[in-house]
């Protein structure tokens, strides 16, 4: 069986799956719109969570939250299910596919056989759509891949029951009911307000604009504290979190700018268009930070304090710039 399903590549898996699934049900909403309405933009520096023996950071909200927020803001009901039994999980999937529905799945990225080695890390909150089954092959639309792919049922079981943080436990989901008239205006407004609050108002030093400043301070100390090798590894990891799989470049800032532009057009608000331009500049600054950081880890041994200071200063500029943008955004009047 095969559902007539249109694969559309996106930068990020969660946005892409939502956008693709909704398009199947005749709700046309682009990836940036999903990201903006679902308030996906974020910053958190996580010194105590080590991946590959280096601290991490995230430029987006926790996995799954974008989905939750978009469902509540567009008033879409989503059926979700997790399993303990592998057999039952596959049976349930087959059953939904037989009704002609594409199904969203949460999977672990490490065992995805079609991924290039660059993507194969133990990350369990990857999302794909299954849209059919031919013999033993499940047809997969993975939004970060250019073309649709497939997995055998054995491979699919493996990724659906990957272990570790955010273990999917066979998690599957599909939309079941929709509001006739979707109120995009209110949804956009709510999405923007929430992002402003999260970037400016959470009184925890590692989150939002505060978090970027905190990170800047850390970068300054890395060389003297950890030595050149470890410091270079740490910086490399930060750049990967910012640019790797699905950020669309500049730690999601460009996707968000695209959202502001589209929202501005939709609501005929010139202010949003201006803010989009400023957000693009913030994204460009993140890219510049990555280039400065790359200068350090390119030639590991000759890293000097001066370059670390430059990278840290760039982060401070970014923090100031973003603070100004979100303050302006928080004051927007939608009438």
């Amino acid at each position, binding site marked *: 069986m095969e559902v007539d399903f249109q694969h559309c590549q996106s930068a990020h898996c969660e946005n892409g799956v939502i956008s693709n699934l909704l398009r199947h049900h005749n709700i046309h909403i682009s990836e940036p719109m999903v990201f903006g309405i679902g308030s996906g933009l974020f910053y958190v520096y996580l010194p105590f969570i080590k991946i*590959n023996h280096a601290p991490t950071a995230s430029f987006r909200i926790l996995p799954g939250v974008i989905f939750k927020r978009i469902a509540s803001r567009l008033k879409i009901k989503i059926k979700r299910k997790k399993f303990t039994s592998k057999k039952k999980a596959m049976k349930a999937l087959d059953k939904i596919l037989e009704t002609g529905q594409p199904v969203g799945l949460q999977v672990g990225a490490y065992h995805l056989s079609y991924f290039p*080695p660059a993507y194969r890390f133990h990350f369990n909150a990857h999302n794909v759509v299954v849209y059919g089954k031919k013999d033993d092959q499940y047809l997969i639309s993975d939004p970060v891949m250019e073309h649709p792919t497939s997995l055998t049922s054995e491979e699919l079981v493996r990724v659906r029951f990957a272990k*570790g943080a955010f273990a999917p436990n066979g998690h599957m989901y599909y939309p079941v009911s929709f509001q006739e008239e979707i109120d995009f205006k209110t949804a956009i407004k709510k999405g923007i307000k929430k992002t402003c609050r999260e970037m400016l108002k959470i009184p925890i030093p590692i989150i939002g604009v505060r978090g970027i400043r905190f990170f800047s301070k850390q970068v300054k100390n890395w060389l003297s504290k950890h030595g050149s090798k470890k410091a*270079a*590894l740490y910086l490399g990891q930060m750049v990967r979190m910012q*640019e790797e*799989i699905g950020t669309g*470049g500049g730690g999601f800032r460009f996707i968000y700018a695209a959202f502001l532009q589209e929202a501005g057009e939709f609501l005929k608000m010139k202010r949003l268009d201006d803010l989009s331009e400023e957000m*693009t500049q913030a994204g460009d600054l993140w890219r510049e930070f990555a280039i400065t950081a790359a200068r350090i880890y390119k030639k590991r041994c000759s890293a000097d304090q001066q370059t670390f200071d430059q990278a840290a200063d760039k982060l401070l500029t970014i923090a100031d710039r973003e603070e100004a943008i979100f303050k302006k955004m928080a004051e927007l009047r939608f009438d």
Partner: protein
Amino acid sequence: MKKDNVPQDDSLLLEGNTREICYAVDENGKYVKVLSTGWEPKDIALRQALDFIEERANKSKEKIANNQLSPIAYYLEKRVMDIKLLSQYTHILRWRVKRHLKPRVFKKLSREILKKYADAFEITVDELLNF
């Protein structure tokens, strides 16, 4: 980022398998999706991470040769796992996994237990034994 500035640095790690979407503005200031074949700064970062994994795996290889660690230690690094994750994949308690890293204990493991490790590492029992 301008559309024309979207980097096309041919990342070897993507193996020509796929390209990634970047969001960039075109000549009229409109946002469009552009496909990118890779970007050097992130490519080096990734390579550095992979090298680091390789380095750790090689270090444990030496220790295995000196009879300080069991072969499980090598695949643990190679597959980018830690004790906790391995314990979850094998359903073997953490303290037992830690014990199995000792060559003395490893030698006495039953085929059944070895199979659990081999499955988790996606290798055969023989590959694990004849390290």
